[in-house]
């Protein structure tokens, strides 16, 4: 029982991490429908920027997070402006290929700049765990969990309640009609990609101190993020959050009670099974024909 509680707590903590990875991609993949292979790289970029600001420049931890997020937003907006602007309306595979190219370029540029040896960032949180009865939790990760929840809430409000959010959704459903509504669709594209990238960088900046910062750190993150976004249903912020927690739960239980070798397999099996029963994710919306 105690062990089960610990696993449950682990799943919750990891779910926070996954949800954090997922939300940035919900904007770019879920709403813009760009198969964004650079997501993991922006995550890694956020982590490297965090390293740069917090360790190289020695700034305050929280300030460094803020700067890293801004840097992510700038890089994301630049990618959109330089690589995607002229390819709007191109089909999904074309933009995907551009993003694959950008992924390869970014990752190897990172090696070129930072070297291939992993970096680490110290967090101001104590290394001693928080203990609640039989359960031990890392305090940084509890912090990450709460920030993740806050970012999810903020993103949800942004997309569903604000004018900007409506403009975003309208733009990606039908951009020429959105333009007729007075929306500056060009700006919306750049802003959305920038925001999604900022969230990816936020994930990197927050998780960099939890894990280590290495050039290939984004690859697994990308894969998980895609899975999470899909699990929840494209473009659905709360769905992505739930997707993160479900994936974490499946993996944790799979690793604990089946076999640690099949840990990731559990996650992917859950995705396959969920999609077989709910072909458009857990929180799908209906569409019509005719």
């Amino acid at each position, binding site marked *: 029982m105690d062990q089960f509680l610990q696993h449950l707590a682990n799943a919750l903590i990891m779910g926070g991490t996954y949800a954090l990875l997922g939300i940035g991609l919900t904007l770019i993949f879920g709403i813009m429908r760009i198969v964004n292979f650079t997501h993991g790289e922006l995550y890694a970029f956020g982590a490297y920027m965090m390293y740069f600001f917090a360790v190289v420049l020695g700034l305050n931890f929280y300030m460094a997070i803020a700067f890293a997020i801004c840097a992510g937003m700038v890089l994301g907006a630049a990618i959109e402006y330089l690589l995607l602007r002229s390819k709007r309306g191109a089909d999904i595979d074309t933009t995907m290929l551009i993003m694959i190219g950008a992924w390869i370029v970014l990752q190897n540029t990172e090696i070129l700049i930072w070297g291939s040896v992993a970096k680490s960032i110290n967090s101001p949180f104590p290394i001693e765990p928080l203990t609640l009865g039989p359960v031990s939790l890392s305090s940084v990760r509890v912090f990450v969990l709460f920030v993740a929840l806050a970012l999810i809430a903020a993103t949800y409000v942004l997309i569903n309640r604000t004018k900007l959010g*409506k403009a975003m959704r*309208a733009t990606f*459903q*039908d951009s020429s009609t*959105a*333009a*007729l*509504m007075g929306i500056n669709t*060009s700006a919306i594209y750049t802003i959305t990609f920038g925001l999604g990238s900022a969230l990816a960088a936020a994930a990197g900046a927050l998780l960099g101190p939890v894990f280590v910062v290495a050039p290939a750190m984004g690859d697994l993150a990308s894969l998980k993020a895609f899975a999470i976004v899909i699990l929840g249903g494209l473009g659905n912020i709360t769905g992505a959050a739930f997707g993160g927690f479900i994936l974490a739960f499946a993996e944790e239980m799979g690793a604990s009670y089946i076999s640690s070798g099949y840990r990731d397999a559990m996650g992917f099996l859950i995705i396959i099974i969920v999609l077989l029963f709910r072909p458009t994710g857990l929180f799908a*919306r209906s569409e019509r024909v005719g």
Partner: protein
Amino acid sequence: MLEIKNLVCRYGKVTALKGVSLKVPANSLVVLVGANGAGKSTTLRAISGLVPAASGSILFNGEEITGRTASRILSLGIAHCPEGRRVFGQMTVLENLEVGCYLRKDTALIRQDIDHIFGLFPRLAERRKQIAGTLSGGEQQMLAIGRAMMSRPKLIMFDEPSLGLAPNIVSQTFDIIKGIRDAGTTVLMVEQNAFAALDMCNHAYLLEAGSMVLEGPGEKLINDPHVREAYLGAGLAHA
């Protein structure tokens, strides 16, 4: 209010407009008729900045608006209800209307206008929380019309507003459009239902294969033998 001079528009190699000129005086209802593919929609799209003009000029209240972005043009007061509904399929009816007044800041009045639209189309009021993509064809058309009205434009352009509407709603819609004109908003309308359109307009233009071939008051076109033959289906419907 709106004046177009020698407008030429191309889609790749296709020249859709070959030098079109027209005038829409303030507080009038001007109708553009013509066969399929004549370039009616293209004219409206060029005005609202969705397709670039290859040459020619578009003046709104004397101001040159050629080459401006769609959002700038809307902010000058030109709204466009596009052909084929084009509602935002994944958003609710209410959200569609809210996006329609994206540039407006007067929150209080917006609520009032939304209620006004729901008053005009009770069908939409029943479905305010429904995802627009699941509305029936006609319901989507109503929504598109309502959405265009939400920006409180000075000039509103309708592209085939009666498409897919039931006969009773068609006549209601035309009444609404007349009402818009009577309330002081200038209207430019493209319509296949030529008889009804010509009957209600102040002035009409006939577009064929990218060129203006005829213009005049509605009755003039209704009585024109060529128009009767080609667009009113003389001897067919009016038995």
